[in-house]
């Protein structure tokens, strides 16, 4: 691996940046998916978002990346309002995400996937950078294999690689550990940590409490579309209300 820190692409992000949600609400018919969420995420660290199923974690990611655009309130990237921006523009502005159900281009090879993702946002990716990313995700032995032939875990790594190739300011990962074997989990953790250290922001949606405790700098717990607790992992994860959620009790909003 090169001496460069892994995230340092041609356009490595510099200085702290903020991704800010101000009073974001979203309703589907009568169901409230997000209720007045205000959240400011700083780059340079890993922010974990936790909460029971249906708490609105993925919906929040969808709003931030522009896949859902009919929310109320506003989302800002470094004080620039990005509400009207299409997902493509937000990706180019540096908001990049992975999906719970991995989405890669099935008929392209690993290397082509990485190359395409990297070249779609800025200038054409260099061959060196492309190989570097493939080494980071530890798939160099099968770089020409088409994505449709990969296992679920390898596909997940590929998707993360594609995101890294885009040198984002904020990398949002939706359940990145689901279906990964322990070795891949440690690869992803390493990638995440290196990435955050390089100055970019990582938003991690996950249920894996031990991993979150070990890696996250900050934990945000959501329930029923609202932020329930927010703070450093030890403090938040020992909060009795949070414990109640993970024990399965329903928590009345207050």
């Amino acid at each position: 691996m090169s001496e460069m820190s892994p995230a340092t692409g041609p356009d490595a992000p510099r200085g702290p940046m903020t991704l800010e949600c101000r009073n974001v609400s979203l309703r589907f018919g009568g169901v409230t998916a997000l209720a007045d969420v205000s959240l400011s995420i700083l780059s340079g660290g890993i922010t974990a978002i936790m909460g029971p199923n249906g708490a609105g974690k993925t919906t929040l990611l969808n709003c931030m990346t522009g896949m859902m655009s009919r929310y109320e309130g506003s989302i800002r990237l470094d004080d620039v309002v990005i509400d009207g921006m299409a997902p493509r523009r937000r990706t180019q502005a540096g908001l990049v995400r992975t999906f719970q159900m991995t989405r890669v281009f099935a008929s392209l090879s690993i290397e082509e996937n990485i190359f395409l993702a990297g070249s779609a946002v800025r200038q054409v990716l260099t061959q060196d950078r492309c190989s570097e990313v493939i080494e980071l995700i530890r798939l160099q032995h099968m770089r020409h294999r088409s994505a449709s032939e990969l296992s679920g875990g390898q596909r997940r790594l590929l998707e993360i690689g594609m995101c890294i190739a885009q040198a984002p300011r904020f990398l949002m990962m939706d359940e990145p550990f689901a279906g990964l074997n322990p070795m891949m989990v440690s690869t992803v953790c390493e990638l995440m940590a290196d990435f955050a250290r390089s100055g970019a922001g990582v938003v991690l949606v996950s249920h894996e409490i031990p991993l979150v405790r070990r890696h996250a700098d900050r934990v945000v717990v959501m329930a029923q579309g609202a932020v329930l607790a927010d703070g450093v992992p030890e403090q938040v994860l020992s909060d009795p209300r949070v414990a109640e959620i993970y024990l399965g009790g329903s928590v009345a909003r207050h």
Partner: protein
Amino acid sequence: MLAAPKWISRRRHLALRADFYLGIATVVAAVVCSLAGVGGAYGISLVAAGLFYATATMGWCLQSGYGGMFSLAPAAIIMIAAYVSAFASNAGWPMGMAVLGGTLSGALAGFIVALATSRLKGHYFALATLVAAEIVRLAVTNEYDVTGGEAGLRTGPLFEGASGVHISLVFAGVLILLLVALLAALRGMPGIAMQAIRDDEGIAAIRGLNVPLVKTLIVVVGSSITAFAGAVYVHYIQLATPQMGSLFQTTFIMSIGIIGGVRSMSGAIVGAALIVGLQEVLRDYPFTHMGLTALAILLVCQFAPAGFAGLLLGRARRIQQRFTVSEHAK
């Protein structure tokens, strides 16, 4: 020839190269037949028609196969280009300008359709193009004063003394240029981007690709190629008629594309050779010809979606593999 970037998978590189050579070989074979005068004057006109269909279908394949926007209007594009080209040359424009004008008008028609139907997908896009094509054809048929109606519009030859051989050479030259350009594009970012959009349009947009732009470009380039074929061919048969834009003509082009292989560069060329050849064999039985063609489409869809070109290339790959294996065994 034409170095591929390193990040392209070897499989794709080999497949594209074989595809390219198959296209070139078929074009060259057709030109040799034409120059040698196989089948006399009739054979020459047959080769010219085949190369015309190959060019027109290549544009359609680019749009419908690679671009994934299944158009039922290639004949209308040909007709528009043919009429514009005929009008322009009749009005005294130099032939090059007339053909260019015809090509651009077809491209414009494609652009308008792409713009208007950017929200439509699959069935709806096909339906919209089908109906738009019918509207244009009916307009051309009915505006007798301008277009000459069913009787058609007469026009001059491409140049003084232009024969079927010359027309064939023009089409062959353009086809080879197109093959080279396509090979370069498909082995680079444009080819990968098109493939990605076909795989998953939604995620392609999220990953930062400008999907509407790419799709519009494909339609415009595809329509231009189809239009060019029409703009030149009208000066070979020296008559523009509404029949050029008929549903039958669309069916013919679609058949060539699908039987040849919509997602291969050589598909249109191989398909044109097959279908025009079959038409010649069954010259006295046109209905049998189209019936068999329809049957062939159904069979291709079921058993060989890569088309006849795909079958040929697959066979070639297997033979090549056998050779490489035996070399390793030594």
